[in-house]
């Protein structure tokens, strides 16, 4: 049985920061096709600030996610600040008092993040937004755990479903955000929020997996 030591949170957070900074231009490019073209700029602004704020500190996973949430809510306005802020705040709350998390607790962390996001937004799967990545990824993870798959298998299911969810936005007509203006013309392009969400979930899975420890049976 695998578990994650939550004192490793700091390293995982730095990985999340790095993946967004590496993809800043790519995210703006994706957004430029049908949106304002500022997704990469905004996301990089928030994640860079978070990276600077936690640099040199040793934070638990909960504290790190909480810091990320507060920086995003404080420095990115629009819709992405509160959406990602709520997601990470919900995740932080779910693992607040845990020294270690197993596959079930990790699933609860994802689910609580999703609940927190849905608490402030009416966006739905199919609207061509980050939920098109997030919802199937969380569901696939939880389904795997319910089936008795181990932590690493569940993480792989999450990665696969996040990727498929992201790709699904290519065929969707935007129903939300600035790209809704384009209607039918938004079809054929990926949604930038779905892309950044896929990058983050994939990185979260990779960073978690590489730090899993095996519990003596």
């Amino acid at each position, binding site marked *: 049985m695998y578990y994650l030591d939550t004192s490793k949170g700091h390293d995982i957070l730095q990985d999340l920061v790095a993946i967004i900074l590496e993809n800043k231009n790519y995210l703006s490019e994706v957004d430029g096709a049908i949106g*304002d*073209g*500022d997704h990469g*700029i905004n996301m990089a602004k928030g994640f860079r600030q978070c990276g600077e704020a936690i640099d040199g500190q040793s934070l638990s996973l909960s504290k790190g996610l909480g810091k990320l949430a507060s920086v995003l*809510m*404080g*420095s*990115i*306005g*629009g*819709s992405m*600040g*509160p*959406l990602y*802020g*709520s997601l990470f705040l919900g995740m932080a709350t779910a693992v607040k008092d845990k020294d270690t998390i197993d596959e079930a607790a990790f699933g609860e962390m994802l689910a609580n993040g999703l609940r927190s996001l849905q608490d*402030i*937004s009416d*966006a739905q799967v199919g609207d061509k937004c980050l939920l098109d990545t997030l919802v199937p990824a969380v569901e696939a993870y939880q389904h795997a755990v319910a089936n008795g798959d181990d932590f690493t298998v569940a993480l792989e299911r999450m990665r696969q479903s996040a990727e498929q969810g992201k790709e699904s936005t290519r065929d969707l007509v935007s129903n*939300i*955000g*600035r790209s*809704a*203006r384009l*209607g039918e013309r938004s079809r054929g392009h990926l949604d930038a929020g779905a892309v950044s969400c896929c990058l983050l979930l994939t990185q979260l899975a990779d960073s978690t997996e590489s730090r899993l420890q095996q519990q003596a049976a």
Partner: protein
Amino acid sequence: MQRIINDPDNVVDDAVRGYLRASPTLYAATDHPRVLKYAGNVDADKVGVVTGGGSGHEPAFLGYVGEGLCDAVAIGEIFSSPTADAFHKAFAAADRGRGVACLYGNYAGDNMNVKLARQMAELDDIEVQTVVARDDVASAPADQRDKRRGVAGEIMMWKIGGAAAARGDNLSEVIRLAQKAVDACSSIGVGLSSCTIPANGKPNFSIEPGKMELGIGHHGEPGIEVTDLTSAKEMAATMCKPILEDRPFNRGDDVAVLVSGLGATPVMELNLLYADVADILEEAGITVHRTYIGNYFTSLEMMGATLTLMKLDDELKTLLDAPATSLALSQ
């Protein structure tokens, strides 16, 4: 891009600096760079009135901070909601112990950030209630009013809510009246050209020369239809029709009329358009109690105009006619 800027990424901060330097008797800085508060009435025993929204709509939103209007404003990036943190700090700046009325427009980002800011304010024991403007008739049919966007009718909401707060009304009364004001408003816009966010450097969308878009939103949200550009007289008729049918406005009604430019249309043409609107209202037996014609709520350098009608009763007339002093509206 023919624009007067320094760094395209710092347009909002640079502009806020300008407002503070130009109008020190009107604006005071706060401990948040994106929150300004009214420099007067600091000791007034009143409900605080807060608004906020994306930049690029000047003089909205910050131009409506002043006497008899809003006490503090949260300022977002261009066409992007202020952060929850900024709304929260604006609540704190406006609160004088009698609660805060947050009067803003119906956009996804603003709704989320205000909701989060209200939760933060709860921890500070600041009571915040909200009214969300939904006056754009083109953005959803009458049976789905809750989906409508807020546009220039927000100004009427600030005027009525601000006047109620200034005379000492309590929070629930300020909220009731601001809600009544925006419920009495119907607006529609016509767009004649696109606009460019400096940081993007290219137009957000396009309207071909010789065309106009009826029902366009304040950020270029799609309208009802794109047609050939018409005369002002025909445009007035095209804009009045959905508004008059919406409320509906009836013979014998008293109204306030607001014609706002979208940024690049000459003020002369706004008055020209109003003359044709006034003819239609006169024909319909509707009495114009008060007019506001000018650049009250814009969309960067978009060409076009919005028309707002507010149906008035005695209660609303008293508050509408009350004095106000601000950059955008003084009477």
